[in-house]
């Protein structure tokens, strides 16, 4: 039995993939998992705001930067698991899908299926990240300072 912290860290990683997944990707993942039980809304998806914060000088005391739209949802499965989602943006269905995947992930019998279903999303994100990194790397510069020889 893994300890609570590592399980939570594991769950956060799955949430992070869902947070970057598109709605079609999450819906495809749900179809792939194919959970037969009922999913009910404990809290219907709703959009609100989270105030984002920076730190003075990048690593100092926090300050309020500005808000971001966030949509949250909470679902309950027939198997008694509760799933949560908090996602940037205003897509209600996307939040419900992410909450459902979060609930399923918490059930030992479904965890592997959820992770398998999210593999394509992780692969897409990694491919995009790597491409962006290569494109950025091509703009790396070496500036030379030239001695002007006036002295």
């Amino acid at each position, binding site marked *: 039995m893994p300890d609570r912290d590592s399980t939570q860290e594991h769950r956060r990683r799955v949430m992070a993939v869902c*947070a970057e997944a598109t709605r079609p990707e999450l819906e495809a993942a749900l179809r792939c998992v194919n959970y037969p039980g009922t999913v009910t809304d404990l809290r219907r998806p709703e959009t609100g705001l989270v*105030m*984002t914060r*920076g730190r003075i000088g*990048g690593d100092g*005391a926090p300050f309020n930067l500005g*808000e971001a739209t966030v949509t*949250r949802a909470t679902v309950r499965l027939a198997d008694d698991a509760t799933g949560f989602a908090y996602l940037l943006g*205003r897509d209600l269905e996307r939040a419900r899908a992410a909450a459902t995947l979060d609930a399923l992930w918490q059930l030992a019998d479904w965890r592997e299926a959820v992770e398998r279903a999210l593999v394509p999303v992780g692969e897409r994100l990694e491919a995009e990240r790597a491409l962006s990194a290569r494109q950025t790397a091509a703009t*790396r510069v070496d500036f030379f300072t030239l001695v002007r020889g006036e002295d």
Partner: protein
Amino acid sequence: MYVAVKGGEAAIENAHRLLAHVRRGDLGVIDLSVAQIGEQLALLVARVMTEGSCYDPELAALAIKQARGDVVEAVFLVRACRTTLQRFGYAEPFDTGAMRAKRRVSAIFKDVPGGQVLGPTFDYTHRLLDFTLAAGLPPPPPAEAAARPDETVPRVMPLLGEEALIEPNPPERPGATVPDLTREPVAFPAERALRLQALARGDEGFVLAIGYSTQRGFGRTHPFAGEIRYGDVMLEFMPEELGFLVPLGRMSLTECEMVNQFAGGGRAPQFTRGYGLAFGQSERKAMAMALVDRSLRAAEFGEETGAPAQDGEFVLSHCDSLQATGFVEHLKLPHYVDFQAELGLLRKLRAESADASEGKDVGEMS
């Protein structure tokens, strides 16, 4: 005294219908989609999100379309929209050191760990109009090069911090409340965290001009761009019901750290700092914000004050484009009764003046 005016409903309705028609423009020209604005006017979207103080690229793009490209009007629309939404809470502060940088330059050290990457920048372009854009030709694909395994780049400033050559950042005090001007009105003198919030949502043109004024001598701070970085960072939030930090998605940010004139004050002299942070790729805004952040700290360092850029009340009271436009633009709304009162007063004064000078210099304006 405010006196309501009535009527004009039909004219207002028709004016708004005409506005919608004019906004659409020539029907022979394809309608601009919100997605196009989001993709191709990304810097404008970033500005509207930053000054609208609401990160949502789609909302900002829609606001830009609705406002016909008027930044201040778009900011107004975004701010109005946010008032309809509830606040879930405060996010965990961004870890900008963990940013996946798409651009990162330092003007103080040539060889910084992680290197200098230009990314998508207007810098070093020739500012010649590109008519291939008018022709709609596709651009060549971007170049690629082997990326380093760890894309996160260490911050530049700690290099100076190691030798205590630069002042430390103010540490987070556990349990201290972070001021929020959307919850409580700004009181002066405003603390630095509050000033940064106000500057972040302040009008770019205003903050730029105030920052520029310090360079021209109205409150000099001798700045160097220690580091500018743009990229994306994960936003994290701790919902009460979960009790752990949940990743909400990646947000794009621009950060600027300025290194400024030393301050001593009895201790060994150290460089001082100014800080800027903005949504999206908003480099000019982040730089200007960092300049003004530092100039507003003049009193803290015992520097001579008196320049506009050193006056917190002046800067913070005038940097918000929505407040400014509200007060300026209200002048065009009906003031008929007010003006009648002024007119009556002026006539009365003139009559008294004429009585007093009767027989002397009649008709001559003094």
